[in-house]
């Protein structure tokens, strides 16, 4: 009798393993914005579509868009886990604690959280070194501006954004010490109306190049209408500003998503902490356009130098707003300090909440 039961159990195990192989790997995505934002969430969704293209029937993806980073997030993430997803990507910082809570309850489901710092055996983190791109566009802006005034539209004062502003400024100062950056906080990642208003206000204050760290193409459209230059964000926005866009810092998650799903299929998935940049292909510069050849050449050289590791955007000497040298010559800012960056470099006319 006992042996019979054992045999049945072995058979059942074999059957379930076989069906597990036949069944597609289910992958869920949680987006903070609408997939049609043409920015952050759009690019994550492009990554999801790349999965479907690469794996075909072997993968089944679902997503929930416009999930606010408040009380609803945990429910949505949990729903995805309970629906039998093998791997769940939560793609905004504010999903960190809910993802961690759900990961604790679903130890067999793998979770990946973008831009956070909490990890567990079944919870990995990933992010991209967008500041590398910001350094390049800083150099381009430094060369292209005529008024020496750059308008910078930003979402929230979090380290990611502050790091971007600093990288941009360091790049710009390296070619143009007189450059000024005017900053407007719109307190939203996606609000085309507010972003457009900020763009107009900055142009009225003399900015002839716009930089954005918000997700909609509205600032690019305003730049196109008003005849100034702009840099796209997250996706290639040249269709919204064919004459305005100099380049765009594109988030490319496709390769990473494919690798991680493959790892789940192979049973080799591990909780990791990934922070990839230009060299990993996570940060991609859109075509350099609407600029003279020598500026384009400088941008390409800078890009190559960062990719090879020869140039680090946060290499000393760096002075803060108070004029103190915070990074000495020959040193670079550590990853940990980059991740928690909460101070401005010299020359930025703005104050951070302390």
């Amino acid at each position, binding site marked *: 009798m006992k042996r019979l039961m054992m045999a049945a159990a072995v058979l059942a195990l074999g059957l379930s393993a076989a069906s597990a192989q036949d069944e597609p790997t289910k992958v869920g995505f949680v987006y903070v914005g609408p997939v049609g934002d043409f920015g952050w969430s759009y690019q994550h969704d492009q990554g999801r579509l790349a999965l479907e293209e690469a794996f075909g029937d072997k993968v089944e993806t679902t997503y929930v868009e416009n999930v606010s980073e*408040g009380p609803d997030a945990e429910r949505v993430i949990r729903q995805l886990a309970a629906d039998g997803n093998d791997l769940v990507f939560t793609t905004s910082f504010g999903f960190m604690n809910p993802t961690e809570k759900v990961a604790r309850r679903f130890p067999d489901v793998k979770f990946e959280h973008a831009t956070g710092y909490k990890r567990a055996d079944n919870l990995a983190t990933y992010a991209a070194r967008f500041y590398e791109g910001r350094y390049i566009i800083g150099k381009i802006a430094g060369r292209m501006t005529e008024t020496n005034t750059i308008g910078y539209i930003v979402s929230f004062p979090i380290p990611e954004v502050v790091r971007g502003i600093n990288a941009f400024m360091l790049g710009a100062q390296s070619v143009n010490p007189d450059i000024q950056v005017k900053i407007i906080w719109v307190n939203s990642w996606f609000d085309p109306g507010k972003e457009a208003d900020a763009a107009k206000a900055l142009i009225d204050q003399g900015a002839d190049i716009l930089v954005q760290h918000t997700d909609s193409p509205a600032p690019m459209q305003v730049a196109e209408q008003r005849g100034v230059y702009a840099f796209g964000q997250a996706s290639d926005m040249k269709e919204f500003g064919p004459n305005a866009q100099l380049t765009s810092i594109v988030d490319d998650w496709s390769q990473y998503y494919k690798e991680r799903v493959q790892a789940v299929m192979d049973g080799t998935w591990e909780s990791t902490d990934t922070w990839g940049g230009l060299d990993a292909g996570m940060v991609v510069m859109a075509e350099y356009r609407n600029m003279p050849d020598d500026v384009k050449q400088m941008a390409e050289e800078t890009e190559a130098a960062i990719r090879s590791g020869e140039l680090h955007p946060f290499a000393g000497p760096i002075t803060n707003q108070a004029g103190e040298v915070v990074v000495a010559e020959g040193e670079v800012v550590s990853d940990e300090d980059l991740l928690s960056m909460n101070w401005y470099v010299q020359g930025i006319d703005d104050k951070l909440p302390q």
Partner: protein
Amino acid sequence: MRLEVTRRAAPSKAMAFLSPVIAIALTVFAGLLIFAAAGLDPLRAVHLYFVSPFTSLYSLQEVLVKASPLVLIGVGLSLCFRANVWNIGAEGQYTLGAVCGGGVALAIGEGSPFLVLPCVIAAGILGGLAWAAIPALLKTVFRANEILTSLMLTYVALYLLDYLVRGPWRDPMGFNFPQSALFEPAATLPVLTSDGRLHLGVAFAVLAVAIAAVALPATLRGFSIRVAGSAPKAARFAGFSQSGTVLFVFLTSGALAGLAGVAEVTGTLQQLLPEISPGYGFTAIIVAFLGRLNPVGILFAGVVLSASYIGGEVAQLRLGLPVEVAMVFQGILLFFLLACDSLIHHRIAFRRAAPRTEARHVG
């Protein structure tokens, strides 16, 4: 032919009760048509939307978690609206409740839950109450329009929270991200189920409904609120103080919104974040009216609206429907409700040709 709308002499009592039910039925019917037009299996879609949230214990729990702040706030607002006081700022009172309760939770830290939690909750209630006291006093003392003042104070409250979690209350261990530290276990609401998120806040909501349902018809205060709304002159003749009523309903609804806020941050989120509400304070206005300003009605309305959100998510997951469809549905529901309502009070008649055409014949 022309259309004539006339007032009914006596609106039907039965229909007043049935109107929300009819509105929901019509919404489901409209849903069937919309899904069929979109090329989906309409029965499956409607099932996912309206039935699936109630079919598993887990999703039922989630419905209640989401409904409880709506019901708590809705009950408070119904008192205001009955007394013709237009408190539109429940979102701000909710936020202040969360800020004050959360602030106390962060300040006390560890301790006995029997001591810490009551302090945290009391702070939340007082926070909401204090925030509501501002428009209440502005109305009673300066006759300032409470719609404007309460609404504007909402934005002040939201920015206050924003400032606190990005500045002074930011988690020192949190890499400078905008969020407070997680509350100590002593300052979090007890969870009622082993695997879920159902917390004590649900009990607060039910309690509020019960108290309001008993007290509103049975107490002098309840009577004065109803008279102040339906016949202000009679209320004055009866010697009810107008400002007394305004203050009472405003402070009560503020306190309930504050309680909802502190329950949400100590129960669901367990920390302060820049975003702590998906618009509960505003959705609760809909809930209050959907429930016909009746406490028990509000309980049902809160559950229905919350289920439509969760059903919307399930439909998004299983059918790939866009999130906007859930919003369209809520819009349709309100439309039918208002339409049914106006038909209770008015009748529509088609009249034959107007006299003017005959006059033209003669001329």
